[in-house]
């Protein structure tokens, strides 16, 4: 239990560290306002950023959060965001991410089963080629290829497409890990024993092998959540989805520094929550994890 608390507190520490690091980085940006030829932002805009970031005020780093909790707009009126809008955009991205996670798990399981079934057949080369193709494909490429068909149709089709294109690489990555774990487990004595007692291969796989293999997935869920959320930025941009990824990219492009601080911290918090959820699920499903912490 103590080990778990240490891990949880270490993960939670990431949020204030990210919040402070991004705040001080943004607050120290030399945004030039005077010289017309080098001007990055107008003097009015710079003044609004100073107000948003509470520069020169005691505990100024809390200012963006104060504004959000009071329901005030952060950033300029046209491109800024309120707390409610931020939550709405985040929920959109998380929704897409959850669908993508489900799809990635489906890809992973299908790819692992396919690879273990065909590992010595003619199709074995596909098991090596598919990860290479998936890894060499940034999310925006399939999004660009599918965008002409889905962008203007609506009816959640862009959201589903975003989840689909975002899920491919993480799914294949997980599938590769799962296939390796599956291969190791299938070579163990208990699998031969179960098969020699007359259990069907499918039953051996479902009842004995998969429960031992699935905890391997949990180790990869954290990095996968990161790549799903980061991948959704590109997909949202191409498919025109007005969610968190789009907000973040536009905030960086338009130098909405207060929005960048808040969005970066929110993003880090989401990652920490995913990490905590993974730890909880691990404790629930993996008896070895419970024994290690007892």
């Amino acid at each position, binding site marked *: 239990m103590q080990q778990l608390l240490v891990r949880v507190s270490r993960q939670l520490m990431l949020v204030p560290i990210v919040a402070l690091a991004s705040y001080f980085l*943004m607050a120290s940006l030399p945004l030039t306002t005077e010289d017309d030829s080098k001007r990055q932002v107008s003097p009015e805009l710079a003044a609004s950023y100073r107000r948003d970031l509470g520069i020169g005020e005691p505990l100024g780093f809390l200012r963006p959060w104060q504004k959000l909790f009071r329901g005030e707009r952060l950033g300029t009126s046209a491109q800024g965001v309120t707390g409610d809008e931020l939550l709405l955009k985040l929920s959109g991205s998380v929704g897409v991410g959850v669908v993508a996670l489900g799809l990635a798990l489906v890809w992973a399981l299908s790819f692992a089963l396919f690879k273990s079934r065909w590992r010595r057949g003619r199709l074995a080369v596909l098991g090596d080629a598919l990860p290479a193709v998936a890894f060499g494909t940034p999310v*925006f490429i399939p999004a660009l290829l599918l965008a002409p068909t889905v962008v203007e149709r609506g009816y959640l089709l862009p959201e589903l497409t975003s989840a689909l294109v975002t899920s491919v690489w993480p799914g294949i990555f997980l599938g590769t890990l799962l296939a390796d774990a599956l291969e190791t487990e299938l070579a163990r004595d208990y699998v031969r024993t179960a098969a020699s007692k007359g259990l069907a291969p499918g039953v051996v796989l479902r009842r004995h092998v998969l429960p031992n293999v699935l905890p391997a997935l949990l180790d990869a869920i954290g990095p996968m959540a*990161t790549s799903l959320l980061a991948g959704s930025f590109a997909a949202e941009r191409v498919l025109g989805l007005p969610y968190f990824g789009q907000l973040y990219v536009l905030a*960086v492009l338009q130098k909405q520094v207060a929005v960048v601080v808040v969005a*970066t911290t929110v993003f880090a918090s989401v*990652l920490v929550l995913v990490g905590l959820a993974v730890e909880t699920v691990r404790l629930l499903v993996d008896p070895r994890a419970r024994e290690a912490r007892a």
Partner: protein
Amino acid sequence: MSRIPTRAWVGFLLLGGLGALSLLMGRLFPEVLASSCPLGSDLTRPDRTVCELAFGGLWISLAIGLAAGGLSTGLGLAVAAVARLSGGVLERWVMRLADAFFALPDVLVVMVLQLAGQSLVDAGGGAGLGPFGLMVVSLALVGWAGPARMFRNRLSTLEGQEFVAASRALGATRFHVLRVHLWPALLPFVLAVFLSRLPAAILAESTVSFFGIARMEPMSLGRYLGTSYAALIYEGGTRIVIPAWALLMLLVLGASLSSQALGTSVRKG
């Protein structure tokens, strides 16, 4: 590692061949690339062909990947060496910092660093870094944590070997052991880690450039697709996207092949 595996050679040839060809055709003979391009002219720049822009931008992506991969590997190596040499609490804290960095998504942090760096450059600072240097530094600042963790673990494993214990028993200092005994054993692993950073750097650069945040000139593959993505969507740009995708994939494949083959050979050797 007495012999470099064939798969690694294939990867090196793919990387070197593509990079050299792109540099040669894009910089020295652009007219040949323009006149023999079967993909036609670009959608948003009708005076340039797709081949000039896509194939000509390949070497920029590769150069950024090589420089950022090299710098992040060097940083990771330095951090791991300092951590192992100091040991104790400092090592634990340095590795914890590396873990925290590793948990953050590359693309997001590179975007923030690009924003900060560009503001600094625009304000007359930035130590003379152009868009290329800024991207390399941003990618290196994000990418050092993974290599640092891998080098620290590798050093820790190597230090457990008998020849290191013998050297220490003879009175060798930690620095001497690192320089004389561990470094030669670590070198092939360093190369494998560097090559494994290469595809990650290329993909992160192409994604950030695609968003329009980096200002690379001549354009990298990601920036090329990013500057015209609206036209690609509404006017149908399959003939542009697919060749650019194939080029990116070949680059990543070359780096992955060589790093995997070298990594396997290091583990076996």
